[in-house]
């Protein structure tokens, strides 16, 4: 599955070769010889990615956690997942 098939029903999964570290409150992601720093909300959403739940479920969890409108949270989640796919951090399993 490619980035182009990403939608709210897609199921993302963190690629196995990706390494995460939570250093003094900041979540760092290492993939392809680059290290990225995740924002708090991106870190939360990344933590919800389990290879089972759909993008819409992750967005709904984000909405509950930060008390923001669900539609907005799902849109943000789609954008985040697209970025994570582009950085080879996440892949789609469905």
């Amino acid at each position, binding site marked *: 599955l490619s980035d182009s098939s990403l939608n709210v029903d897609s199921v993302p999964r963190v690629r196995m070769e990706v390494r995460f*570290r939570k250093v003094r409150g900041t979540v760092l992601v290492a993939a392809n010889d680059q290290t990225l720093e995740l924002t708090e909300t991106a870190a939360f959403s990344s*933590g919800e990615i*389990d290879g089972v739940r759909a993008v819409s479920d992750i967005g709904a969890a984000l909405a509950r956690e930060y008390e923001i409108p669900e539609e907005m949270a799902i849109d943000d989640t789609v954008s985040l997942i697209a970025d994570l796919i582009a950085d080879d951090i996440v892949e789609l399993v469905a």
Partner: protein
Amino acid sequence: VNTDFTYCGAVLEDLGLMPEGSLSTFVVGSMARGWASPASDIDFVIVTTEEFSDERAFSLDVPLDPPAVPTVAFRHEDRRWELKYWLESQVDQLFDKISWEAFDQDQKVGDRLTEVEVVFLERLVTCLPVRGDDWIQRRRDQLEASAFRSILVMQALTKADEKVETALSQLAGDDPESGVLSARDAFGWAMDALLISHGEYGALVKWRARRFRAAAPKLLSFEEYWSYETMRTYDPSKPGNWIEAVARLCKKVSMEVEI
């Protein structure tokens, strides 16, 4: 369970094994945690300002100055007692190694700590005093403020990542049995990282379930932990499923555990 070991000080004095001017004496290990069996040793640490010397002592090597920890073992009332004599100056050197400055300079500083050094520091957290409570509390506070926990968590997460990569590589290389063994290793390291992050130190596998119950991490219930530990969901016809489940759990731990 007896948690009062103050009587041991007089026993050690009678045997000529309590140096004058020692700063602190404490019981460590399974006895101090209340996890001992009838056959368990009783392990002591005695901290001194002068080097301990006795014909009954043998030495444990440490990369410190002086490079040895004198150790004495004997039987008393049907139980083996083991005493380790640490110099205060060696303890100072050890704390220098686990400073935040040392960790910030090299996050792999944990790889240069020896087992003897790590065990000494780990056991400070749960030791029970014979004498010298003030010394213990001061050093515990110092340990809590140091980078020790982060050093060990970082080390365990790195090992877990390495073992996951090995397991997946072996699985991809049509060697699932080796992959399962590597995944078990990865799981052990990930659990160590999780438990250490909750202040539950100790690398011995035999205590992991007790440490898990003591830490009670929110990330994983004891039942889930025990299911992985006993490989309850492992299907011999589909070993890859278990390996991948362990790999996902390790990833989850590395995202949640604070360094």
